[in-house]
């Protein structure tokens, strides 16, 4: 059984490779977009703009309180329903994952901004700095360091979450794995290999994030 399993995988290696690239592409794109969304939403919430705050709280409740899978289906099948042909599986997945992970990332940023002691802003004001400059030169730089470890963690989660796109038909590594299983490969081995690939990527990075967090705690005493 084993011999066959590895042979079939080897035979389908091109498919797997394409799947891996697709996963990487989706991950890379959504890391960028969700960070942008998360930053903007997090900052907006931190700034406590009245009407926007309510809207954003609804956004957060919606995207953190419902499964990502349903969100993917809503966007993809919903786009088909609305006859938006340009929404491919990739685009639908990217939109859903961006909004989903963006919601969590926004909380990371918001906590990061809030972790800058209010005395900092007060000092900036007494020095005459405008709100814009206060944010740009005082709040943001201090936030960056503190926000990195949890942000890192969110990215690792995001990478794992991209596999959900396979359920709606995106040809990521899991989907391609299922393809070679259909051609006779042993599913236990295939899924194990896929899991191992994720592990090999995520585990070292998670250790890095942990080390980073410890360094920051040592330097500043607290993390967002």
């Amino acid at each position: 059984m084993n011999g066959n399993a590895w042979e079939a995988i080897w035979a389908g290696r091109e498919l797997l490779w394409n799947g891996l690239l697709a996963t990487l592409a989706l991950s890379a794109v959504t890391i960028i977009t969700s960070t942008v969304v998360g930053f903007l939403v997090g900052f907006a919430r931190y700034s406590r703009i009245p009407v926007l705050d309510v809207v954003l709280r609804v956004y957060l409740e919606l995207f953190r309180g419902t499964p990502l899978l349903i969100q993917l289906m809503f966007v993809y099948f919903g786009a088909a329903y609305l006859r938006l042909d340009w929404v491919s599986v990739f685009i639908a997945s990217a939109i859903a994952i961006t909004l989903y992970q963006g919601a969590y990332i926004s909380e990371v940023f918001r906590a990061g901004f809030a972790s800058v002691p209010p005395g900092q802003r007060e000092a900036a004001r007494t020095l005459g700095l405008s709100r814009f400059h206060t944010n740009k030169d005082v709040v943001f730089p201090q936030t960056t360091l503190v926000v990195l470890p949890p942000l890192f963690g969110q990215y690792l989660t995001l990478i794992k979450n991209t596999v959900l796109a396979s359920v709606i038909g995106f040809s990521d590594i899991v989907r391609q794995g299922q393809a070679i299983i259909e051609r006779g490969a042993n599913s236990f081995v295939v899924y194990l290999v896929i899991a191992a690939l994720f592990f090999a990527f995520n585990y070292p990075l998670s250790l890095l994030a942990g080390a980073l967090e410890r360094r920051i705690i040592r330097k500043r005493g607290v993390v967002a």
Partner: protein
Amino acid sequence: MNFLNYIELFISGAWVTLWTSTVAFALGLVLGVLVALARRSRLLILRTIGSIYVEVLWNTPVLVQIFIFYFGLASIGIRLPAIVAGIIALGVNAGAYLAEIIRAGLGSVPRSQLEAARTLGLAPAQTFFNVVLPQAIRTVFPPIVNRFIDLILASSLLSAIAVNELTGAARRVNAATYETLAVFAFAMLFYLVLTNLVSLAASVFARYAFKPAIAAPVWFRFRLRGSRLVDQTGLSAGAKSPRAQSKGDSR
């Protein structure tokens, strides 16, 4: 709105979601306690096994774990019904997160409490059950409830192995009525209601079960924010370290 004719499907799906999540979570709690104790053990072999368990489950996607338990085991001769495979997969996965939460909770009781117990002559076991455990339980309660909520959302993945829970029900209704936006929006609403009910139930339970509801660092005051239990300080044992946070998973 045709799809409302299929409300029964939604309800039975939601019921499956609830009971499978509960059973899986119970499994997760048992595993979580065992692994937490293993990781705090003096024996290196136990600590190592515990660490491997946690790291492997944290760093691989839940969906793949589910597929391994269902398709993978089937292909090597162990054919589990989809629901069973799904429950086991979700439970094993939850166990990894719960292990860390419990471990952090046990460690959150200040050493000074242990010293005080010692000076009163309490034996280690007595100290554990009368001083450490009560305080640790209060600390871990919010993150554990949050983890249950996460699991309910993660159970949506069981639809990928043809379990008829809520998401699966939504797909079936969509296939029957093609009122896509309404159907999935309704499903989302259903999940929101489910998770918020769990939050509420947990808050009420905490108010009555934990007197006076304090653990050394954390006051329990739950507010329904984003359908997660958040206590006033924003701190929760086990959920604060970015590694634990980052090991969030598709829900």
